């Protein structure tokens, strides 16, 4: 009640100032009159009476001031006054204001833009109900110390049954189906999921129903829930779709539901995988039977929802007990298998999180340099304004009041700068995604939302306080009389102020150097990465991805299909050669495993040699431009019924047949006590960087396509012309062989190569851009500070020259100071970089985080720029005319 009344009355004083003032005047006037009447009654004259009253109760104005300052509104009024004052002062020096605002807008804008990315990608919760209760369950091989995201059905089954920590546990796997009997055959990408996946996610179909638990059984799994986009795109958003049958990979499936438009699972397609769609296009039942012999067949992703009140740590501990029991129960298959529980969000953003935090750190360094710049600008001004401040102080402004006034000014600057920064950042969020990697998760959702604005506001305030505090603490030390007495504008600055300036030069140099060294390391990494030879010739290469349905194309039919397709493609004008592989370099997760070399038996699987395995057609190596090193390539004679053969890459040859040629030796993939089938090595090919350009080649075994045709294959086409131009001709060739066979996608190898480094390019471009920004800010800042120092010492320079100092001596004096400050800045910067680049090491490639060449080159470059920035003012100092300098007084 009284609070309301208080606020109302305060607001009234603020907004109806005139009336409130008049009332106070009248009330106090009445008081004085009544007091005077009393005195006059005692015999005084009116004049004497009024004088007596004034003596007794003080001046009317002072009283008014006391009463007025009693309410909270007086503080607001003071702030308002300061604000008006500040905006007036800022408007009066437009060039200062413009430079300061531009600096701040750049610093804060860059910060806001990067934070909006961090916000969208890392901080925003996943789009599921209570998504912080959702976890991913990951297997962990304790012997090898590696995680694997995929687990076996029996293990998933037992974890789900025996745990006490989870409300639901669900399994899924990626699956592709060919949609036919529509206008054009289409590959759909989706998942097979256990019936409780949707309850786990807290999601429901907008049409129809979820799977029933019994529909998980194999043989009863011909039901499908369509993704919203699939429903609208291929079935015209038919509201009667539920219960209808559609043809998927040659079999009839009944549509039982349609998911909402926003639904997607997994939340984003894993960064490493190449799939035609970023969204799940259908859900089908898992359809796996419990088979105890498949306990080591890892193929399912597992997610779970924590029971309310259970933490991730507790859930992990609970599941570990379950896993330990299983390990004891099934020592052959589960030995060393532990379980880890991680927030589901980690699966989505785990890979990009470190890079984003580093970007945010980098952009904060830019902001600090911007702060230093604005501080020096304010400092320069505060010296000029010393008289104004001294005058205010002598007229009775208290110190806190003066500090409040100056702080208001810097906060106003910071907030306006922040507002401009938000505009810059908004432009940035429209522009950034254009050169951002397609495979950066959730990047499409980057936007300036409430949280971003709150962050920007906070950053602006902190910025304002940082650059405002130093100059505004100064007047509290100012001797009021000194600047007022002084007639000179050019007195030599006090030692303290000069130290502060020096410190600013040092910190600008240090901060930007640390950032530039980081940028230099990233750039060098990127250049090295660009120069890496992937082991094949990527230009003029088109890739076409197809997957055959099991039902229509059993293994013996696949060879026929692919051979007819390749034949047709070969006859397309512009095509030089055609090959195929089931695992294209730089695009996927590979399979492999242990093998036995004939004559070198090993005791257990763990000691056995291992290699990745892929299947390639006869012309694959020729088409890709991968040179043969020893032996021969596959030919069309390496077919079903012919002796089983294989090829290995150089790394495998070096590792497992050191010092000898593997050609002619035999190996087998059957392990344990089963009768081995021996395959003969017929050739060795040069290494290809398969996983990424950043990882060395691993032992790889190539098997001939005709001896084990896979359902999934990437056909590679070497062309004499622009490969993208042949896309439709190649698609037509496939349609001519089977009009119901969709193409998953087709891309040029150059694009695939570019995509594989897109994330790194994105990080590098941004860090280098921030480095450049910091460099510009720092050089401008150093120039400004040195110029100011010279201007302040013009008088002193004039005296020196008049007294006979050589002009070059004067220049040396200024340069020496600039040189010393730069040197100190560089040493601090190097120290800082040594600490900070440690966090960068994961983002570097073939460049040590303390790479001396980068450190030296960047330091020299920045040092040179800083010296140049102090050379210009120094030259001006040299040209000082002693007469002018002295007459300046």
């Amino acid at each position, binding site marked *: 009640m009284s609070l309301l009344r208080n606020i109302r009355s305060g607001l009234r004083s603020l907004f109806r100032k005139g009336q409130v003032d008049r009332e106070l005047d009248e*009330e106090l006037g009445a*008081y004085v009159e009544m007091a005077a009447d009393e005195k006059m009654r005692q015999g005084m004259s009116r004049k004497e009476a009024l004088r007596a009253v004034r003596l007794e109760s003080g001046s009317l104005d002072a009283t008014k001031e006391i009463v007025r300052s009693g309410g909270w509104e007086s503080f607001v009024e003071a702030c308002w006054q300061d604000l008006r004052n500040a905006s007036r002062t800022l408007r009066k020096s437009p060039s200062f204001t413009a430079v300061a605002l531009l600096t701040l807008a750049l610093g804060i804008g860059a910060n806001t833009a990067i934070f909006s990315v961090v916000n969208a990608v890392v901080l925003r919760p996943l789009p599921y109900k209570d998504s912080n209760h959702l976890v991913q369950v990951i297997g962990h091989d304790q012997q090898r110390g590696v995680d694997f995201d995929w687990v076996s059905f029996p293990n998933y089954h037992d974890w789900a049954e025996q745990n006490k920590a989870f409300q639901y546990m669900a399994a899924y796997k990626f699956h592709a189906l060919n949609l036919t009997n529509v206008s054009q055959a289409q590959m759909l990408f989706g998942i097979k999921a256990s019936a409780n996946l949707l309850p786990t996610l807290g999601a429901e179909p907008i049409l129809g129903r979820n799977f029933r638990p019994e529909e998980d059984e194999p043989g009863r799994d011909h039901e499908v829930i369509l993704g919203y986009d699939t429903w609208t795109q291929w079935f015209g958003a038919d509201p009667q779709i539920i219960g209808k049958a559609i043809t998927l990979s040659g079999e009839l499936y009944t549509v039982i539901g349609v998911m909402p438009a926003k639904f997607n699972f997994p939340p984003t397609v894993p960064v490493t995988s190449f799939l035609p769609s970023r969204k799940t296009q259908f859900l089908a039942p898992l359809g796996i039977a419990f088979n105890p012999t498949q306990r080591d067949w890892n193929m399912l992703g597992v997610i779970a929802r924590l029971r309310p009140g259970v933490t991730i740590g507790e859930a992990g501990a609970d599941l570990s007990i379950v896993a330990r029991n299983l390990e004891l129960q099934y020592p052959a298959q589960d030995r060393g298998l532990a379980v880890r529980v991680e927030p589901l969000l980690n699966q989505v953003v785990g890979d990009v999180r470190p890079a984003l935090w580093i970007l945010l750190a980098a952009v904060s360094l830019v902001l600090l340099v911007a702060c230093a710049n604005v501080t020096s600008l304010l400092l320069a001004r505060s010296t000029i304004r010393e008289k104004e401040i001294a005058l205010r102080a002598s007229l009775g402004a208290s110190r806190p009041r003066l500090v409040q006034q100056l702080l208001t000014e810097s906060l106003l600057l910071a907030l306006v700068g922040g507002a401009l920064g938000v505009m810059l950042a908004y432009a940035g969020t429209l522009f950034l995604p254009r050169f951002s990697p397609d495979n950066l998760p959730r990047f499409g959702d980057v936007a300036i939302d409430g949280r971003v604005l709150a962050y920007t506001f906070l950053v602006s305030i902190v910025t304002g306080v940082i650059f405002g505090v130093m100059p505004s603490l100064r007047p509290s030390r100012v001797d009021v009389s000194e600047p007022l007495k002084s007639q000179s504008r050019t007195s030599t600055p006090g030692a303290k102020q000069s130290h502060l300036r020096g410190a600013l030069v040092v910190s600008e140099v240090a901060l930007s150097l640390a950032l530039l060294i980081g940028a230099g390391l990233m750039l060098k990494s990127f250049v090295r990465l660009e120069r890496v030879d992937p082991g094949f010739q990527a230009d003029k290469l088109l890739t076409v991805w197809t997957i055959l349905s099991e039902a229509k194309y059993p293994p013996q039919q696949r060879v026929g299909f692919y051979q007819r397709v390749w034949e047709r493609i070969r006859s397309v004008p512009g095509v030089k050669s055609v090959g195929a592989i089931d695992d294209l370099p730089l695009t996927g997760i590979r399979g492999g495993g242990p093998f036995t070399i004939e004559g070198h038996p090993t005791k257990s699987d763990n000691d056995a040699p291992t290699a990745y395995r892929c299947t390639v057609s006869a012309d694959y190596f020729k088409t890709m431009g991968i040179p043969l090193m020893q032996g021969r390539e596959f030919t069309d004679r390496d077919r079903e019924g012919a002796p089983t053969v294989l090829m290995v890459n150089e790394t495998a040859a070096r590792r497992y047949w050191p010092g000898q040629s593997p050609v002619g030796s035999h190996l087998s993939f059957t392990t344990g006590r089963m009768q081995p089938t021996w395959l003969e090595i017929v050739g060795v090919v040069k290494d290809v960087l398969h996983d990424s350009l950043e990882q060395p080649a691993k032992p790889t075994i190539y098997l001939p396509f005709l001896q084990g045709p896979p359902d999934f294959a990437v056909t590679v086409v070497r062309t004499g012309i622009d490969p993208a131009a042949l896309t439709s001709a190649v698609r037509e060739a496939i349609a001519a062989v089977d009009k119901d066979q969709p193409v998953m996608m087709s891309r040029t190898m150059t694009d695939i190569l570019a995509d594989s480094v897109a994330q790194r390019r994105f990080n590098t471009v941004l860090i280098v851009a921030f480095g450049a920004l910091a460099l510009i800010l720092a050089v401008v800042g150093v120039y400004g500070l040195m110029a100011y120092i010279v201007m302040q010492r013009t008088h002193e320079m004039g005296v020196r020259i008049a007294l006979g100092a050589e002009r070059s001596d004067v220049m040396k004096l200024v340069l020496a100071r600039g040189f010393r400050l730069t040197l100190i800045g560089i040493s601090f910067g190097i120290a800082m970089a040594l600490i900070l680049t440690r966090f960068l090491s994961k983002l570097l490639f073939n460049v040590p985080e303390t790479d001396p060449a980068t450190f030296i080159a960047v330091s020299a470059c920045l040092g040179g720029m800083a010296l140049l920035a102090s050379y210009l003012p120094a030259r001006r100092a040299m040209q000082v005319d002693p007469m002018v300098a002295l007459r300046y007084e």
Partner: protein
Amino acid sequence: MPDKATDVIQGTLDMLVLKTLALEPMHGYGISVRIEQMSRGVFRPNAGSLFLAIQRLERDGLIDGEWKPTENNRRAKYYVLTQKGRKRLNSETREWGRQAAAIARILEAS
């Protein structure tokens, strides 16, 4: 009795203003005179503190102000004790009595 009237003891002015208004509605000058009279010239609040106290009490809803003509045909703002103000006066009076007694006991115990 001291030679000169002093400002009131810190923190008690609010209570004294409430007390004077408990008798009858009064304007600022009247309050000041009444306090001086009732304290037999010991206290004379200065105008600044008095009007500050009045503003505070009015904002807290303990008193209400109203413009009225005075007996000399001037306009003055008369203040009236509200229900809430009366309650506050009672509680403050009790508290003051307790404290004054306590202080007196301390000073007497030598």
